[in-house]
């Protein structure tokens, strides 16, 4: 193993420029991919916080009375995709309103009767899928006693449409950069192989196994992928540190924003993927050379 590692490092040293270009290409690809992942992770968190984890309010008609509640709950539950359901009576809703408005409650005393409707607060499970949410909402609306349902349909719909558009663009870009990095890695390994063609030929003639010949190239690919991943994530971290505090401060007064760096799990996944990318590029190249 030490021998293979030494050989791989010697190869990298002797083809410094080529290896540097490959590592930079991989790191740029990883940077682009991780920018999208960072956006998706944060956008998901922001949607969740803005939408309070898929919270929706079902307003009930005047004729509703507490006896109808168990039957209504069962009916809504049977429509599926609901995590939690809390009944808020009109009296409780008025109390909450009074508490929330604190000093400005004098006008509420002028009310002859409670104008607020009975309501059910629900949490929708798959609230990131707007079509599913819409279908569920329509089914709930179809229940006789339900007057209206409020779930932030306006902005959520628009935001999710933009988010999904970004997602598709993101996947396409990630795929494109992944392929680009893959071909460049494969090409670097191919060039490294040709620069060592005589050595490989001699090794074959004196009885080296295929594994013995290929191993340094694979290690080279793994090193390129690993370093590319680390560099790409490092660049992302620096950009994140420079940009995130500025964005959060300037937009904090308008919207709730909590921009966080990628989770440890995601960082590990990216490093693993880029290392795999290096290996896979090498595999493709050697498969073609040795066929």
């Amino acid at each position, binding site marked *: 193993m*030490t*021998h293979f590692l030494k050989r791989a490092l010697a190869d990298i040293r*002797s083809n410094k420029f080529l290896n540097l270009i490959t590592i930079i290409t991989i790191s740029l690809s990883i940077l682009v991919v991780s920018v999208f992942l960072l956006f998706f992770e944060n956008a998901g968190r922001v949607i969740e916080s803005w939408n309070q984890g898929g919270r929706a309010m079902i307003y009930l008609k005047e004729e509703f009375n507490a006896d109808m509640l168990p039957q209504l709950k069962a009916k809504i539950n049977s429509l599926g995709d609901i995590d939690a359901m809390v009944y808020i009576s009109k009296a409780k809703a008025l109390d909450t309103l009074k508490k929330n408005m604190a000093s400005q409650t004098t006008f509420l005393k002028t009310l002859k009767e409670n104008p607020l409707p009975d309501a059910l607060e629900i949490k929708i499970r798959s609230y990131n899928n707007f079509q599913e949410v819409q279908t569920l909402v329509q089914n709930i609306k179809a229940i006789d006693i339900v007057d209206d349902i409020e779930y932030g349909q306006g902005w959520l719909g628009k935001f999710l449409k933009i988010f999904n558009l970004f997602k598709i663009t993101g996947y396409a870009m990630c795929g494109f950069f992944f392929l680009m990095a893959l071909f460049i890695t494969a090409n670097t390994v191919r060039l490294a192989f040709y620069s060592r063609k*005589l*050595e490989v*030929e*001699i*090794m*074959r*003639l*004196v*009885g*080296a*196994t*295929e594994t*013995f010949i290929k191993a340094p190239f694979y290690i080279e690919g793994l090193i390129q992928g690993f370093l590319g991943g680390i560099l790409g994530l490092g660049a992302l971290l620096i950009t994140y540190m420079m940009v995130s505090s500025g964005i959060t401060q300037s937009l904090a007064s308008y919207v709730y924003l909590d921009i966080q760096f990628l989770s440890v799990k995601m960082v590990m996944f990216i490093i693993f993927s880029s290392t795999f990318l290096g290996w896979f590029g090498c595999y493709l190249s050697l498969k073609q050379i040795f066929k």
Partner: protein
Amino acid sequence: MNDKNNKNSIIRLFNVSKRFGGKLALKNITLDIQQGEFIFISGPSGAGKSTLLKILYLADNIFEGQVLIDGMNLSRISSSKLPVLRRRFGIVFQDFKLIPTRTVYENIALVLEAAGKKTSFIKKKSCRY
């Protein structure tokens, strides 16, 4: 050549022929080399001496006839067994097969490295002379 005792045969060739395009380089070579025998193959340039050697260590594996080396049939040898066979050969190549970017020590050590020998053994063996 000697064909008295097949038990001691180390290299045997049966009707080995080799063509380059339409040109015949080797024609029906049959020979039997015994263990410990010292053999010279001579001939003018282009007679097929190198071609014959290349067939023996399978640098050229497209030929007609049968070649047996220590009981192993080269026509049927698997790619995984080929390195094992080659490790049993000691060949001085016509073009020396030296890597100009490596030191003398590294060039010597390469053969032992390829054979999977340990570093300590390689050092000891390579620095012997």
